[in-house]
């Protein structure tokens, strides 16, 4: 028993030694240690917003605009079973945003306006205030959203195609019917939790947007597959400007990359000059 009392201080020390020698759970941040943050969140959001501009313009002009001329339909209720149509550009963007949220990159993307077709998309508060400035100068606006603790950027969403103007002016729910080409119809809002990003994180943001584009476009092609009454366009290498055709997701994404890669690459290689 005396020995027990002599050694009683040894047991806690032994227990502590066992716990410490076991090592803790590896820190996730350790994976990123050694990687320098090379882009500010503003730079990255500008890059991805530029990609979005190109993608949306291509979809609106080459798919929706030309597709309508071929008799293809695009509808806000495109997901409903009885509606045999593709997503309108605003819903195409919503689909991209949904896909991004399903992935691991903490990027948020939203579309709003002061005269939205759907009243639920009307800007309020800080966004409404900044949107007034965007309408004046078309310059991006940045702020920190305290409530969500997210870095936030807003970019002008322009009426870049005749289809934007005619659909919004003629929509039964529209609150403004004198839109014209070039108008600031709304703004995209982007959010990200960090103030600066590593090269890898930047690429992940750009890739998540590209994946979102493919995902929603694939959903559209999948809907076409289930058309019962409407004539199905042929899906391949051709575009609606050539007839009742639609490009595959790969062909669509290739075209986006061709149109946007120069601007994005300029930003990415500018690292060497920093």
């Amino acid at each position, binding site marked *: *028993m005396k*020995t*027990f009392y002599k*050694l009683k201080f040894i047991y806690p020390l032994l227990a502590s030694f*066992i*716990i*410490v020698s*076991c*090592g*803790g*759970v*590896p*820190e996730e*941040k350790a994976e990123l240690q050694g990687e320098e943050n090379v882009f500010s969140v503003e730079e990255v959001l500008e890059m991805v917003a530029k990609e979005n501009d190109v993608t949306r313009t291509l979809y609106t002009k080459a798919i929706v605009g030309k597709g309508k001329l071929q008799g293809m339909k695009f509808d806000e209720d495109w*997901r409903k*079973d009885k509606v045999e149509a593709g997503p309108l550009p605003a819903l195409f963007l919503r*689909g991209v*945003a*949904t896909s991004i*949220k*399903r992935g691991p990159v903490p990027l*948020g993307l*939203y579309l*709003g306006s002061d005269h939205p077709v759907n*009243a*639920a998309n*009307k*800007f*309020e*508060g*800080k*966004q*409404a205030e900044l949107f007034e400035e965007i309408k004046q100068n078309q310059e991006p606006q940045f702020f920190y*959203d305290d*409530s*969500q603790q*997210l870095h*936030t950027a807003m970019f002008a969403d322009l009426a870049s195609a005749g289809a934007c103007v005619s659909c919004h002016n003629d929509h*039964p*729910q529209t609150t403004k019917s004198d839109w014209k080409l070039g108008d600031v119809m709304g703004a995209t*809002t982007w*959010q990200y939790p960090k103030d600066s990003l590593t090269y890898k994180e930047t690429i992940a943001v750009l890739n998540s947007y590209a994946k979102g584009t493919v995902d929603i476009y694939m*959903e559209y092609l999948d809907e076409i597959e289930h058309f019962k009454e409407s004539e199905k366009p042929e899906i391949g290498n051709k575009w609606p400007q050539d007839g009742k055709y639609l490009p595959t997701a790969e062909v669509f994404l290739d075209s986006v990359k061709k149109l946007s890669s120069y601007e994005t690459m300029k930003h990415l290689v500018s690292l060497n000059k920093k």
Partner: protein
Amino acid sequence: MFSISPLRTRQVIGGIIGLVVGALVFVLLSLESNEEYVSVGPMNTGHEELSCFACHADAKGNLIQQVQSNTSHAFGFREEGVDFGTQDVTANNCLECHDRPNDRHPIYRFSEPRFSDAIKNIDATTCVTCHSEHHGERVTLGKIDYCMNCHQDLSVESDPLDISHKDLIAQEKWETCIQCHDFHGNHRYEVPTQMKDTFSLKLISNYLKGGKDPYGMDKKYTALSQEEWLNKK
């Protein structure tokens, strides 16, 4: 070294019995067949067949590592603590089975700044605000007037309803919204155009508590079963 004083024999026997009983209880409660005794309450509607691990995944590392990491964190030697025992359950766990492209109110949308006032009243950025688990119900939110937080300015052009949406809103009849519309928009059914044809509040209330679905069983997407979820992983 471990010789026992005759005066402490009963204490030692009691201690050993305690250890054996404790170990036995631990082992028995760890068995999958006894999960219901560990659960803090009955599973919500549709989740009756789920095992604990479907939501409560083991935390990273073993228990000793978790103790060390959290002790280090408490003394400032580590930036972040770690989950102890099991990982925190988040909305991502729900979405692994319930994520649907046609969701008209996906939780991510409410992270946008313009909803900051609305989410002070109802935190729609997470599923558990309305679907708190272990209550044996479908929707655990007390009131059904939640549409008022975002749709005060709604007006429907060529309103198909016999009493206009604008009038219903002016009269603050917010409970009527879900008498026609299912919140997540996954049901295939004809939305009523006359108030007399809408689902009664009794039916709705019963549904929210876990009863029969008044919107019908025809849905565009069905949630994954545990088996389907496991196969997907």
